[in-house]
């Protein structure tokens, strides 16, 4: 394993090299070459991560710490006892993250080649994207909190750069984009304050930032307090100090086992348990910033200003999950701080519910997905708060698949709408405006379409026929997000709900009951707003010329969609809480469902058979889809119930691959047995949400005057408006934070700084004092004493010189006589001793 794991620096270096190549040579390269370099860099990183995964599996899941060449001593200050090595950790958790980041990253790189085609800063986009990958991989591979922080800040920077990527759009769009970028950056700084405080506290308490020292081997088979840890504790007691011998987590275990440890902070002392609670709460502030939880989530919806591949990669699949990764990584600390975990849970469920509600009332296709992401991140955070670290990671992975799929699908839709709009106008107006078809940077430049918003769902409708591949993949993503059996989202969401159920009914925790109820409602919201989106975007009839003329996207964009769709369908198999035979039945079901879909869906048939049906033959596909949804749901429920209730199918040998896998690096990971009733309830909630949306948004998706159906009905109007206004979060922050802050800043600038400090203090104290002192030094001291003194000396010298000048007669004989006199004098002096004798 050592040898294979030592490739891990390459995983970081390859995307970095890709970024450098495109940075310096990008301007000389064609778009295809730039995209190939960037995608290859990401793909090779994925390949190495995959090889390491195989290696670690073959070697008993043993974690390895790798010292990259040339970088082993990063921060080493012996006098202050600071030794923070640049070490990378290869274990099952970091490998999971590496695979997700590079895997989804590679697909999105490929997609971006098509999406960014024709952009004026094509190369720069890929530089940022590769740089983001490098930083994200530093974040997940680091073996200490400081490396994690370097990655954490690096991805924040790349996020800023990419959100504001189109900062130069015309008609004020650019300002909006760069403001969104700044908002993301500043809000994240608030979270980073918390993370930094946590890191400082960790260093103060433990004297090290390493997760585990290289010699520590984590054997956590079954119980976390295993013999291996005990051995480590004893080894630590034998050594000097102990704190430098062990990493943070082993040290925590040791002190907790010891009991009654007191941490001294110089002037005051705190019990160790209190310190851990403080650390985890500060860390939670960081998590709420990066993973977009209440109260710091406000940046993520605005971050949709970036290009869609960025939204998919950074703001849905990878960067925003860093907070979940962080809590999972520090599971030892959170497990020791029940209060913090409870707060984490409550923040998670509150975010899930709140964001799910806001998503119900959005018009922008990407805003719906953004709030959905916030909501799903709330699910993950709630899961890790409940101690379901594997459940959180599982949902992280499946969410990365289907949310990346949905974002890329929405990007495909937006792209098509722009094309369709241009196409419609190119035919409608014969003036022949020759704007570039694909130039995103210039898209706001079309004089006639200032009012047209390609992301507004009110402008869409009926796209299923125009874009079959996008539609089918989007539908799969939607069903997965809604938690429909047997797609990936069903399994991961069910596991989170199962965790909540266990925490409530088995452990008797209040937050467990709370989480179960709230997350159920949030899951219902999810199904509802996603089906509303399907109805608005893909079904019904086209509502604009652009939607009627929208073309399917190029293969570079649809291939990633198909791959992600496959991952979304089968991703649940990562952690199926079923026996072998149950999985076999599942597999047969999948194949049957595939054939059945092929028969039922015109879009799927079009894609596989390649025969386009006449568009005009059916004005609406609503009845068909209603039938499909009902029948498929019924079939899946029946077959699922069979698996759950027939005992021989759920054999004793569990196939929770992810739990078994993560147990080797995340302490306190526990598997879960499937709770059939809970699963059926959750599934029913999802289906009910879809059916409700189907009922509400039929026969027409929009009411009179482009109003939402819910807005048109008086009983739900208030709720819709509240949701549409995003619950006034931004306004509240503006009112209670921004305005007081700006007023305080203005007061400080105008009153304190300018009027008092500058006008009064500077003028009276500094300027006047300086002037008086300068006058004193100039007039009496310099011109009086110093000048006069030197003048007098000079005059004296001149007088003496005038007198001495008379010696020079100019007559030769005078000089000769003087010389003679001198010679005689010298001779006399020489001869004087002789004369005396």
């Amino acid at each position, binding site marked *: 394993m050592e040898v294979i794991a030592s490739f891990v620096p390459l995983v970081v270096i390859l995307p970095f090299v890709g970024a450098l190549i495109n940075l310096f040579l990008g301007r000389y390269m064609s778009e295809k070459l730039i995209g190939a370099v960037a995608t290859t860099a990401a793909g090779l990183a994925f390949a190495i991560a995959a090889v390491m995964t195989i290696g670690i599996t073959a070697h008993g899941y043993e974690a390895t710490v790798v010292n990259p060449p040339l970088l082993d001593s990063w921060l080493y200050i012996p006098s202050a006892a600071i030794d923070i090595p640049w070490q990378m950790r290869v274990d099952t958790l970091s490998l999971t993250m590496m695979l997700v980041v590079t895997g989804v990253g590679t697909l999105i790189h490929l997609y971006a080649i098509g999406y960014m085609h024709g952009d004026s800063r094509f190369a720069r986009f890929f530089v940022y994207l590769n740089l983001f990958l490098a930083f994200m991989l530093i974040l997940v591979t680091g073996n200490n909190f400081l490396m994690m922080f370097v990655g954490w800040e690096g991805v924040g920077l790349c996020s800023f750069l990419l959100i504001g990527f189109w900062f130069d759009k015309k008609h004020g769009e650019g300002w909006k984009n760069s403001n969104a970028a700044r908002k993301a950056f500043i809000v994240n700084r608030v979270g980073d304050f918390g993370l930094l405080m946590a890191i400082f506290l960790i260093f103060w308490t433990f004297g090290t930032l390493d997760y585990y020292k290289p010699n520590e081997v984590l054997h956590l088979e079954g119980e976390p307090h295993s013999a291996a840890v005990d051995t480590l504790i004893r080894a630590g007691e034998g050594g000097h100090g102990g704190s430098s011998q062990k990493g943070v987590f082993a040290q925590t275990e040791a002190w907790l086992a010891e009991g009654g440890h007191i941490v001294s902070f110089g002037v005051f002392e705190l019990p160790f348990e209190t310190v851990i609670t403080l650390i985890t709460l500060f860390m939670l502030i960081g998590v709420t910033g990066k993973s977009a939880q209440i109260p710091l989530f406000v940046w993520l919806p605005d971050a949709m200003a970036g290009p869609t591949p960025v939204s998919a990669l950074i703001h849905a699949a990878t960067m925003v999950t860093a907070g979940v990764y962080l809590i999972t990584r520090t599971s030892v600390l959170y497990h020791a701080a029940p209060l913090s975990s409870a707060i984490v849970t409550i923040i998670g469920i509150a975010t899930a519910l709140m964001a799910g509600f806001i998503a119900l009332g959005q018009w922008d296709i990407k805003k719906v997905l953004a709030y959905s992401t916030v909501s799903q991140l709330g699910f993950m955070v709630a899961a890790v708060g409940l101690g379901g670290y594997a459940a959180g990671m599982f949902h992280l992975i499946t969410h990365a698949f289907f949310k990346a799929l949905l974002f890329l699908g929405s990007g495909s839709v937006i792209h098509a709408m722009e094309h369709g709009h241009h196409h419609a106008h190119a035919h409608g107006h014969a003036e022949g405006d020759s704007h570039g078809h694909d130039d995103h940077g210039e898209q706001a430049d079309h004089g006639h379409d200032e009012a047209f918003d390609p992301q507004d769902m009110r402008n869409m409708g009926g796209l299923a026929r125009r874009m079959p591949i996008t539609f089918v993949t989007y539908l799969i993503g939607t069903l997965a997000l809604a938690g429909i059996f047997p797609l990936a989202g069903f399994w991961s969401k069910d596991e989170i709900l199962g965790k909540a159920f266990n925490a409530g009914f088995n452990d008797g925790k209040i937050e467990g009951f709370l989480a179960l109820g709230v997350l159920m409602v949030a899951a219902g919201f999810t199904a509802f707003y996603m089906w509303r989106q399907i109805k608005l975007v893909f079904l019904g009839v086209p509502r604009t010329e652009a939607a009627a003329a929208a073309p399917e996207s190029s293969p570079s964009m649809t291939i990633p969609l198909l791959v992600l769709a496959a991952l979304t369908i089968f991703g649940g198999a990562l952690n199926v809480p079923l026996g072998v035979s149950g999985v076999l039945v599942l597999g047969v079901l999948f194949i049957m469902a595939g054939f059945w879909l092929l028969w039922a869906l015109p879009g799927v048939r079009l894609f596989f058979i390649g025969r386009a049906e006449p568009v005009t033959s059916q004005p609406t596909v609503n009845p068909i889809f209603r039938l499909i949804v009902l029948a498929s749901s019924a079939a899946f429920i029946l077959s699922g119930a069979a698996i759950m209730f027939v005992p021989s199918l759920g054999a004793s040998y569990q196939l929770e691959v992810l739990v078994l896998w993560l147990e080797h690096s995340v302490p306190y990971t526990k598997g879960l047995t499937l709770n059939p009733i809970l699963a059926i309830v959750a599934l029913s909630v999802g289906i009910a949400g879809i059916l409700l949306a189907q009922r509400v948004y039929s026969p027409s998706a929009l009411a009179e005057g482009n109003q939402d159906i819910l807005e048109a009905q008086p009983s739900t109007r208030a709720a819709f408006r509240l949701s549409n206004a995003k619950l006034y979060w931004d306004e509240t922050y503006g009112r209670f934070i921004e305005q007081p802050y700006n007023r305080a800043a203005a007061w400080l600038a105008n009153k304190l700084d300018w009027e008092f400090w500058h006008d009064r203090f500077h003028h009276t104290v500094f300027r006047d004092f300086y002037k008086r002192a300068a006058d004193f030094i100039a007039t009496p001291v310099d011109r009086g004493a110093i000048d006069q003194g030197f003048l007098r000396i000079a005059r004296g010298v001149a007088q003496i010189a005038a007198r*001495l*000048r008379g010696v*020079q*007669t100019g007559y*030769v*004989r005078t000089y000769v006589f003087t010389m003679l006199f001198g010679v005689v004098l010298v001779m006399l002096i020489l001869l004087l001793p002789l004369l005396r004798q």
Partner: protein
Amino acid sequence: MQPPTVATEYFVVLSAVLFIMGVLGVLVRRNAIMIFMSVELMLNAANLALVAFARQWGNAGGQLTVFFVITIAAAEVAVGLALIVAIFRTKKSIDIDELNAMQG
């Protein structure tokens, strides 16, 4: 038969007389040529004293020195006469008292 010997004292006295004549000449004459000749007189007085003592002590070093002095005096004559010619060309006179540009 011994050659007639002259006591060294006579040579020294003659040398001193010649040297004093030279000094006085340099001090009192105003003609540059005369001053120059007086300098030569002093040089030769010194030469005379050198050979006289060389003879008394039977040491050829003094005579050797005299040759050097004569040689250098010849060179000095060349330089000095050239200077005098140059002075005459500019001043149309070789009166040394007119060369008082160094007067303070």
